């Protein structure tokens, strides 16, 4: 704090940081703007900036023509379901490794991490054939299973690093005071674990929502989440930019908000605790 912070320095770094931030954020801003233009305006040369007749009709059209809510519901079910199931499987595992570690705990953790390193394309063929034979192609349950398994290592890891930070002394103190195991769990451990659980849930929801390898390869229409729905705009069908922008804005808005809340946990979750 003792460092000299001159007003000039603050002014320069503020200007620089805002400029950089604006440039990086600009494609998203431009997309949101385009979603409120007419197709003609969105395609116009030179581009129209803020002074356009604003319209919200793209949002209505997107829903009417392509059943946006069907795909949004798929995204919610698949991303939410896979995250919840992964949490249910991972909480006991992470709990056990954090509170009664054995000699092999470290090896198990690293082995779990290594399953995440396997490129999905390496197992695309067998998964596709298994799914075809079991009738899981283009089903919500199929996508939920694959995204759950894909994110499980990250969930276990994140929970493990959070649980590990719960101080043991508190447990011992509670036991000395005569708390039973169930009381210990409800009154002591759960409140301390909630922040870690919440951020793990959030980050994995985001990862599952945006997953675009398995969803593109294993679903086409019925179970297609928003990633696949947006991809259907890649085939040129004349003037469609404003609608593409409207659909995209709707698809990323909820997750952007969640993402902004979870940005601090992002570093920890995605580096497996290597950078905190």
């Amino acid at each position, binding site marked *: 704090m003792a460092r000299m912070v001159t007003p000039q320095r603050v002014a320069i770094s503020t200007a620089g940081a805002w400029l950089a931030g604006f440039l990086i954020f600009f494609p998203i801003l431009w997309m949101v703007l385009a979603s409120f233009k007419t197709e003609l305006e969105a395609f116009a040369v030179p581009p129209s900036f803020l002074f356009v007749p604003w319209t919200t009709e793209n949002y209505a059209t997107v829903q009417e023509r392509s059943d946006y809510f069907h795909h949004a519901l798929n995204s919610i079910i698949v991303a939410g379901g896979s995250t919840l199931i992964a949490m249910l499987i991972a909480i006991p595992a992470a709990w056990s490794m954090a509170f009664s570690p054995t000699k092999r705990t470290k090896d198990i953790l690293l082995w779990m991490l290594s399953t995440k390193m396997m490129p999905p*394309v390496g197992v695309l063929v067998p998964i596709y054939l298994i799914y075809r034979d079991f009738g899981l192609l283009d089903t919500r349950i199929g996508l939920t299973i694959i995204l759950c398994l894909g994110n499980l290592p990250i969930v276990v890891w994140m929970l493990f690093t959070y649980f590990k930070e719960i101080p043991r002394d508190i447990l011992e103190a509670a036991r000395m005071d005569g708390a039973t195991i169930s009381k210990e769990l409800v009154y002591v451990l759960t409140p301390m674990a909630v922040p870690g659980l919440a951020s793990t849930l959030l980050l994995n929801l985001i990862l599952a929502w*945006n997953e675009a390898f398995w969803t593109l390869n294993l679903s086409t229409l019925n179970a297609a989440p928003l990633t696949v729905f947006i991809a259907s705009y890649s085939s040129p069908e004349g003037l469609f930019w404003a609608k593409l922008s409207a659909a995209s804005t709707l698809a990323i808005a909820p*997750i952007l908000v969640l993402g902004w809340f979870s940005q601090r946990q992002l*570093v920890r979750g995605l580096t497996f605790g290597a950078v905190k």
Partner: protein
Amino acid sequence: MATRQTQLLARTLLTPATALLFIWMIVPLALTIYFATLHYNLLDPESGQFVGFENFRYFLTDPAFIASLENTLVLVGSVLVLTIVIGIPLAVLLDQPVIGRSVVRLMVIAPFFVMPTVSALVWKNLLMHPVSGLFAWIATLFGLAPIDWFNDAPMFAIILIVSWQWLPFATLILLTALQSLDEEQKEAAEMDGASALSSFIYITLPHLARPITVVILIETIFLLTVFAEIFVTTGGGPGLQTTNIAFLIYAQALIQYDVGSASAGGLVAVVIANIVAIFLVRIVGRNLEA
């Protein structure tokens, strides 16, 4: 004995996760290895006979493999260089006293949360379209001819899109690392008359060495299998110009239905990813002991 009970409980709690991950890893991988030794095409009812290493020979000597390996390396390498070379100064900038830093942080991190299909299509259409894209308009403002990105420089276009998606990740990790840097050390250096540049080179950069390594390894793992961005913009073309290994395997499996050779390709991808993974696991493992 309470301890034995606890141990038993611990093991029981751990079993579902390990069992599932074990199956998830072993079954598809075993099948991939098995398919890789077969002549197996979904369009050919006669297929299914054992051919040994024929698929590997076919896949590895296919000119498309060499091209896609090159493309993969160019894509991974360029995105790594771009995200780190821009990410370091950006992180240093965000570490300065900035008014409204939390808002700037939000703007910088935003691209990471945009689903790959959205970012690819928004860049392809709204920004990079040769006639109506914003970049074309900016080029004409300066009296330049607009670039037809996806015809003249398709790989570069993909590199730009993917870099935009991963720049926030690199910046955020480097920023987190910078914020844990000891202020006193920098102060002492400044008092001793070190210039801003030399304190950056001798104090900041060495401190960033580990986070940079982590960024490189994690990004590499994800970048080796970039798929959606190529799928919705170029479809691997023109020709093979933007086909990376992931896309090549996808095309062989689900467009040409050649299961055998796609499986062989899948194993090649696993081997490449594992070489990177070994280093990452080592770094993370060292951290576990601390």
